[in-house]
């Protein structure tokens, strides 16, 4: 009835296999961070150009058939306080002290537009157990399929930006989020928010071009006149304005593994409510652990074999033939 040394070693070997892969600092099957899709499209939002008119919010509601939200008593127009199952896109205000100068951190203010970042390596698509959230293989838009969604809300737990929203007041609820107007793109058009932005605060385009445009802007000299394209990065329609100073941080270039929505601002992004994220998506970390333990189900089968052998021996009091 005592544990003999051989049994103990066998058990240790089985358990050790599982533990070792969890504990080892460089896991055997690291999941490489995902890279940008060659034809990915996205949006560049420049808070220094944005005038806070909320035309993007109105257009988003119209073209996504979303109901208005009355957030204050007696309100007669759409005035959401934050993103919700009825609001995919919102313009918020940062204000500090006297709030005198636009795009200044101290005693200044800034607009910040929030919507799905369409991550390069999205946590939500990695978390979704039934592939209801998927990344379009061509455009890279993160899309939702209600017909397979089980409503587990793990996407909400996973998203670093709290983007997916759930219909808490519905008996048959859905997840709701910005899908980069893929229904408009399918018709050769582009996201409504960019089409209706009057000032060039949000522009649509290939992510590669958007990255180049963002870097061009970061290199501009404050106080000088410069041209800013309207609606689309490849547009010939330009707006000329005096450059205001930027924070030297292109949010979304690397943050959280990178995103197809890029943000430029005069105020540090964390002050505008964006999270401070490492350069690797949590999806890569999570999948590395899962793949190390379960790739091809090899480790579980080996452990099962060992367990079976030990149990067989202990219950029948004999070794396998």
């Amino acid at each position, binding site marked *: *009835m*005592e*544990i003999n040394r051989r*049994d103990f070693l066998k*058990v240790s070997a089985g*358990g050790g296999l*599982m*533990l070792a892969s*969890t*504990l080892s600092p460089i896991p055997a099957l690291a999941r490489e961070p995902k890279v940008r899709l060659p034809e990915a499209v996205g949006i560049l939002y420049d808070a220094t150009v944005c005038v806070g008119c909320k035309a993007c919010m109105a257009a988003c509601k119209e073209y996504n058939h979303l109901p208005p939200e009355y957030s204050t008593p007696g309100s007669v127009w759409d005035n959401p306080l934050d*993103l919700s199952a009825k609001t995919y896109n919102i313009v918020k205000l940062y204000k500090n002290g006297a709030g005198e100068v636009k795009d200044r951190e101290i005693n200044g203010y800034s607009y910040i537009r929030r919507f799905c970042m369409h991550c390069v390596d999205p*946590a939500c698509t990695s*978390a*979704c*157990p*039934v*592939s209801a959230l998927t990344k379009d293989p061509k455009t890279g838009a993160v899309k939702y399929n*209600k*017909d*397979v*969604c*089980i*409503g*587990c*809300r*793990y996407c*909400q*737990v*996973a998203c*670093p930006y*709290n983007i997916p*929203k*759930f219909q*808490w*007041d*519905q*008996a048959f*609820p*859905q997840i709701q989020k910005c899908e980069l107007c893929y229904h408009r793109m399918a018709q050769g058009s582009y996201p409504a928010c960019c089409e209706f932005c009057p000032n060039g605060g949000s522009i649509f385009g290939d992510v590669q071009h958007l990255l180049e445009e963002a870097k061009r802007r970061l290199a501009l000299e404050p106080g000088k006149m410069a041209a800013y394209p309207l609606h689309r990065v490849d547009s010939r329609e330009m707006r000329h304005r005096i450059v205001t100073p930027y924070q030297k941080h292109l949010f979304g270039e690397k943050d959280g593994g990178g995103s197809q929505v890029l943000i430029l601002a005069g105020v540090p992004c964390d002050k505008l*409510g964006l*999270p*401070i*994220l490492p350069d690797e998506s*949590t*999806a890569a*970390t*999570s*999948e590395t*652990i*899962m793949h190390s*333990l*379960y790739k091809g189900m090899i480790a579980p089968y080996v452990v*099962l074999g060992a*367990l*079976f052998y*030990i*149990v067989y021996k*202990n*219950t*029948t009091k004999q070794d396998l033939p």
Partner: protein
Amino acid sequence: MVEESQSLGGKVITKPFMVLAALVLVGVILMLYRYLFGLGAVTNLSDGYPWGLWITYDVLVGTALGCGGYAMALLVYIFNRWEYHPLVRSAILTSVFGYTLAGLAIFLDIGRYWNGYNLFLPWHVNFNSVLVEVALCIAAYVAILWIELAPTVLAGHHQNPKAREARESLERWLPVIVALGILLPTMHQSSLGTLMIIAGHKLSPLWQTGLLPLFFLLSAITMGFAVTIFESILSSLAFKRPFETPMIAKVGGVMAWIIGVYLVIRLLDLLVRGQMGLIFQGNLNSFMFILENLCYLVAFILMVQPASRDQLRWLFVASTAMLLAGSLYRFNAFLVGFNPGPGWSYFPALPEIFITLGIIALELMGYLYFVKRYPVLPKIEHA
């Protein structure tokens, strides 16, 4: 075959049983309300805190409390300690109810339950998702647990020759079933911890670590031993049976060493990640971290010394402390330490709490019914 277990007999419908039934009824009515008017109508869940009491208690704590069968199977069948075999049946029974109801609670929590079958369609399943591993593994384990319980039910009908035959053929498959019954909880109890890895910065560094799966696994095993001790003492008291002290005290000794290993790794992990400072910030997270690990420490100190663990009173305190410690760890890692950003807060709503109470009541009713009707608890002469 020598029977080492016996049914208690006696009336099933007693006063406590009726009180439990009333709680179940309240729960069922509230559940109907949830299905008619949505999750927002009965819970305080929000887009910031999409998972609340049901996931944390019913699934995380519920299945950990259901790890008695797993922990005892490890001890008896793997480490060949057959002297603990009399405890296995009641441990499995608690596991059956803990896990089955956790499985049902998931269908209460998921918003689009009618799509639930997609989890079992390979062309929809996303094998990168930690939740897939958890869901499939728990589903498989619920089936295994009922198979493990089957001999008990069949033994209850021992005069029926068909039942005896079925039982004998089941016992031939025992090694496979037991091996699966150990592998599956090892997999999903660790994966329950892995679930939070993807939440990244939203979980406080006091709990966010690559070792989450290891901590969840070790705490599930220790909770499994603790619940076996706890249940043994309580059922001895409730049904006026002799205490199983020497045997459960030894289980406590085994448990103490696992807690010791856990605590050392837990603190080393914080030290290596340079997050020790967070323990002393005087906020809710620090307080809950200290409380959680104090419970662990109490359980460890009481269980590691034969002088205290041989006394029933301290054994009871220690197992309670361990159950609290593991439950607190789960609540902390999924709710308290989870901060989606400014403006969000969560505390369960009253109907949410009552639904969970209803589920617990159903579990207790099932336990009472089974120990009275079927040979679950150890025979008194042997105890």
